[in-house]
């Protein structure tokens, strides 16, 4: 794709963004909306610039929690999917509970993980992020591992390939696109988990504490800038995994 084509592809989205910001800015000015409901984008931007070091550091702190939770949750999700794909009986016994568990609003566990792992460290936030990440990765990976075409299995069996060979050469590669779908969902969830965890107590230089605290001390522009930083980290994380996906996966892109 040429740079020109690429620019054209992004143009509509850019227009929407600019329009949204302009309307936001003007609506607040025209209707004199109170600052604590929504500050103007320009005010948020200048606050971000003034406090960028503090905000980005807080974002980095929270991102570390998200990343840790992501690593733990995704690893466990993949591991569980591998076990359940290999021993279907176990899967049939556990699947209803896995689905039921995924329906529990995990965020409600935040105060409990704080009690288990201590409210001040990164561990309790990682725990929430990990639980949030677990289910999409687990469900998608399992679906990928079990959605292999029967002909592929017959082919491998005709070579007298063992279960391990079939796993390595067929199930896992087939599952990879779905695994990445799960991982991409997990990137966003891990940031949410970390920030919500911080709402229930944490280090003052964590983003969730900062957003919540600045809101309480009437630094609304700071709170909004913090939300912006959270978004930026979330999107960057998502794009990083998407890039990894592009490297890892051969095959016709399903997006184009």
């Amino acid at each position, binding site marked *: 794709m040429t740079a020109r084509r690429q620019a054209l592809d992004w143009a509509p989205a850019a227009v929407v963004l600019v329009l949204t910001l302009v309307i936001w800015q003007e609506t607040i000015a025209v209707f004199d909306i109170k600052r604590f409901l929504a500050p103007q984008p320009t005010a948020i931007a200048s606050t971000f610039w003034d406090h960028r070091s503090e905000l980005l550091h807080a974002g980095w702190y929270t991102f570390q929690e998200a990343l840790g939770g992501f690593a733990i949750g995704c690893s466990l999700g993949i591991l569980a999917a591998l076990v359940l794909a290999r021993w279907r009986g176990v899967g049939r016994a556990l699947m209803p509970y896995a689905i039921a568990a995924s329906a529990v609003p995990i965020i409600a566990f935040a105060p409990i993980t704080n009690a288990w792992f201590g409210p001040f460290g990164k561990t309790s936030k990682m725990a929430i992020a990990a639980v949030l990440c677990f289910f999409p990765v687990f469900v998608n990976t399992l679906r990928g591992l079990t959605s292999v075409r029967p002909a592929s299995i*017959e082919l491998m069996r*005709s*070579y*007298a390939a063992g279960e391990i060979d079939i796993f390595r050469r067929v199930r896992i590669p087939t599952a990879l696109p779905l695994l990445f779908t799960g991982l991409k969902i997990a990137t966003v969830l891990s940031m949410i988990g970390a920030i919500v965890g911080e709402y229930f107590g944490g280090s003052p230089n964590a983003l969730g504490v900062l957003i919540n605290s600045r809101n309480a001390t009437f630094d609304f522009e700071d709170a909004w800038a913090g939300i912006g930083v959270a978004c930026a980290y979330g999107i960057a994380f998502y794009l990083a995994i998407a890039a990894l996906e592009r490297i890892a996966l*051969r095959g016709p892109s399903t997006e184009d």
Partner: protein
Amino acid sequence: MSVVEIHKLTKRFERGDVLALQDIELAIEPGEFVSLIGPSGCGKSTLLRIIGDLIQPTSGTVTVNGKPAPRARADHDYGMVFQDSVLFEWRTVAKNVALPLEVLGWDRSRRKTRVDELLELVELGGFGDHNPWQLSGGMQMRVAIARALSFDPALLLMDEPFGALDEMTRERLNMELLRIWAASKSTVVFVTHSIAEAVFLSTRVVVMSARPGRVADVVEIDLPASRGALTREETRYFELVTQVREALHLGAELDEAVAQ
């Protein structure tokens, strides 16, 4: 010694209590090209899979190179080609061909030599680094055939490999297959529902009838070994096509008689 010996083979599927195959007797000699033809539901694909030890028979025996089928599969005596080429999109063409060799534990350099040889054989030299989805359906099937031949199996089992292709491609691939068969000196069991294809390719055509699947007739194809585009215009070819067709119809009438 026969490559394949089938004796009193019966297959009943538990689900729906379907008698798929009944009392099949068949022997296939080295170097033969045997087609299994019949109406859908006659169990020809099931028979192929039983020979390949992908399905277990209810009763009777299958011997391949004098060994029971499971043993033969463990010894890598089978090369299989399905209607769908079953190429893995995450592997290049060359890596797809090399897949069985990886499973068999061949080292890298040996694999590469063999894959190059095979791609030349199926006239896909230079396509090794392509991705499967960049190839046409016919080319994909040639990759699948190369893959099946890669470890030199004694027996090539092909399940309607050209069924999804257009007529032109199919005829061209028929010729290719004959050339490859001659070059590889393997024994082929070929499932098809095309009479023309069966007659053109085979040394023998096994005509099957449906419900339950049985061998209705075996037609010896006495066309000369070297066949070409002109073979399809020979009188003998037409006679044999007619003979297979009649055998098929007879089988169908037999079905109806049984049904009544």
